[in-house]
């Protein structure tokens, strides 16, 4: 179980332009779906984008505060193309 603002701030402390949206997948606040929009992903393939975030979340996953995550990572251009950002 984890405070969503803690996770959001943790990600933003590494990627300062990040837009972060977190959803609780199970109602137990430990299976999270996280959407991250940041230009830090520019030029990186998807797996490297995901691994950047997994590295940031490592301590929270290691202590089992977060049990599982589903990630969606997008650059700002891609988010605009998908209508997720105006």
């Amino acid at each position: 179980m984890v405070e969503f603002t803690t996770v959001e701030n943790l990600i933003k402390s590494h990627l300062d332009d990040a837009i972060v949206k977190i959803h609780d997948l199970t109602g137990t606040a430990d299976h999270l779906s996280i959407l991250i929009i940041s230009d830090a992903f520019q030029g990186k393939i998807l797996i490297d984008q995901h691994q950047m975030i997994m590295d940031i979340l490592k301590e929270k996953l290691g202590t089992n505060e977060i049990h599982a995550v589903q990630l969606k990572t997008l650059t700002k251009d891609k988010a605009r193309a998908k209508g997720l950002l105006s």
Partner: protein
Amino acid sequence: MSNDNNPFNILGSEKVPVAGGTAVNEKDTSLPLEERIKGLLSSSDVFLFMKGTPDMPMCGFSANVISILNAMNAKYQTFNILEDMDIRQGLKEYSNWPTYPQLYVKGKLIGGNDIIMEMYEDGELGAVLNS
């Protein structure tokens, strides 16, 4: 050729899917783990570590990646991690990726089911497979 009547074409591919995967066995399992992993990866440009085999996937996510690779008409080799606990545990550390399946192109990890599915849907997978 129209592919509308092919009941196996669940992904709506333009091309007729082909079963392009072959499961491999290792010749020498006495080598250090990292060499075994590198040996497997070097056997094919496109390589999938999965649960089960292309003909009989033992997990829905592995089955999904197989159907995507077949829809892309990819030629690839696979390794069944259910048959080897050393590889199953060791590869997670080698790749810093905790789950299966794991798809590699030219020795580089490209992703698991979620990432492969997203790249396929966004039309980005072909370029990576043929890189």
